[in-house]
């Protein structure tokens, strides 16, 4: 495999497709497989439709939903756009106030910013230093005209898990729609939408060993949970998402969901043990700041800032260990992480952050190498820095 020389600790960015999933997808694509258009009224079409509906049930089972609640999309970005813009526009006649946080994924924040340009009023709730939403601040922000709240479940940079049950409960009491971006959570931690007061939830397959290019939006099948569609062109997916269903992709996400459900307990134990090992191996270095909540955050993510170290140099010095500096989405911009800055980290500390994200295929050897490389890189880069920085002399 081409990536063999590398040690992959960037599972929050994406995961490799499970072998079983890839095989099932390949079979579906080819002649002799269920390659038909699920809308076609002939045996091959009906076989494809059966695959699409089986996958819908598999995914629904994973998150405690009913199959009718699942709308196929191209991934979490589309789901976030569809949920937020769709709900805000549908309910605009009732009110135009929306609530979210600045630590959300860009797919969420950019959508809210677009809505603000359309005339919606957005309240951005600052997180506490550990990344959590202050519920009192949230209560204070709710108004009579508030129509939608969007808060992510697991933060993609820090692994912080928000108290979705309590936030959703407050929304439900006030008749406000509640959207959750769960891209980093689905298939990794238990989610039971039969019990959680969530109206809309975004997810994507490639974060849980499924293929890229397919995701879903959970839309609670209730009369008060309606969306304005973003795309037009057919009656597919409850008239919310037209287009010929990508049967092979959907088969992939369905099977990945089933495998995730079966493996979740073991996967969680595995990544928890490896993260603890990683932190025990580097945590004694002076000047480190743990970004997130080590005790009750998502155990697959460890985000650490190092004082006096340039993040880009640290990341290159870590190779062959593949990690993220900030989030994968803004790593190329050269700017420090907007999420970490929202948590109150200064520019330099945010810029020095490394996100290790551990997954199903991570090994103890991977972690041992990561510890060795990280320690050496931090020590060497600090030794190389001027004793006193700044100024010209």
């Amino acid at each position, binding site marked *: 495999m081409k990536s063999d020389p590398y040690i992959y600790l960037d599972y929050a960015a994406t995961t490799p497709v499970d072998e079983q999933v890839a095989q099932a997808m390949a079979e579906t694509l080819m002649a002799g497989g269920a390659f038909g258009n699920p809308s076609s009224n002939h045996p091959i079409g009906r076989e494809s439709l059966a695959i699409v509906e089986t996958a819908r049930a598999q995914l629904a089972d994973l998150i405690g939903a009913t199959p009718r609640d699942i709308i196929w999309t191209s991934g979490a970005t589309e789901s976030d756009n569809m949920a937020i813009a769709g709900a805000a526009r549908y309910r605009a006649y009732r009110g135009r106030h929306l609530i979210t946080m600045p630590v959300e994924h860009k797919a969420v924040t950019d959508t809210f910013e677009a809505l603000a340009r359309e005339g919606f009023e957005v309240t951005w709730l600052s997180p506490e230093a550990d990344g959590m939403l202050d519920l009192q601040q949230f209560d204070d922000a709710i108004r009579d005209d508030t129509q939608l709240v969007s808060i992510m479940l697991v933060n993609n940079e820090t692994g912080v898990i928000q108290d979705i049950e309590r936030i959703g409960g407050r929304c439900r009491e006030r008749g406000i729609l509640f959207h959750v971006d769960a891209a980093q959570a689905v298939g990794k931690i238990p989610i039971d939408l039969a019990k959680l007061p969530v109206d809309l939830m975004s997810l994507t397959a490639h974060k849980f060993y499924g293929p890229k290019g397919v995701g879903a939006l959970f839309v609670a099948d209730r009369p008060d949970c309606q969306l304005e569609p973003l795309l037009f062109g057919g009656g597919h997916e409850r008239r919310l998402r037209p287009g010929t269903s990508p049967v092979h992709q959907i088969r992939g996400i369905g099977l990945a969901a089933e495998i995730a459900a079966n493996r979740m307990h073991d996967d969680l134990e595995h990544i928890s043990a490896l993260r603890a090992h990683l932190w025990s191996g580097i945590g004694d270095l002076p000047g480190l700041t743990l970004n997130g909540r080590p005790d009750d955050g998502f155990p697959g993510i460890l985000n650490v800032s190092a004082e006096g170290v340039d993040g880009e140099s640290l990341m290159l010095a870590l190779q062959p260990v593949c990690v993220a500096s900030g989030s994968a989405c803004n790593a190329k911009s050269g700017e420090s992480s907007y999420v970490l800055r929202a948590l109150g980290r200064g*520019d330099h500390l945010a810029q020095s952050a490394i996100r290790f994200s551990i997954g199903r295929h991570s090994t103890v050897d991977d972690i041992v190498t990561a510890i060795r490389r990280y320690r050496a890189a931090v020590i060497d880069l600090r030794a190389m820095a001027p004793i006193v920085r700044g100024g010209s002399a």
Partner: protein
Amino acid sequence: MTSAVGDPYSPQTRRYFENPAHAGDLAGDYTTSAVAQASESDGGACVQLAIGLRDGKLAECRFRIFGCPHLIAAAEWLCSESEGRTFSALSRFQAGECMKILGIPVDKTGRVLLLEDTIRLLTDKLARAAAH
């Protein structure tokens, strides 16, 4: 030579970054030596250059850096190329030429220009020392 598609680091940049033999402080005693430091105005990247002259030549050239891999690679290249030459050879350093040789992307020009700033400060220091 350019880097692979999507890889911001050329093989040359990687080689100099991974082997910063000239990082640190002057080890020898010199009749003439100077240290200068320049940094970005926002308190970001910071470069320190130290030179030791013997018989009119740069006997030792060392750097300290807080900054990105491109800046570290450029400083290492500068120091390794300069040792054994005269100071005037060092003072002719041009960021653009270095960036071309190391395949440094244009958006890092500001960083590499810090080396030019530092050399200018070294020149001033040596001139002041000579005037005394």
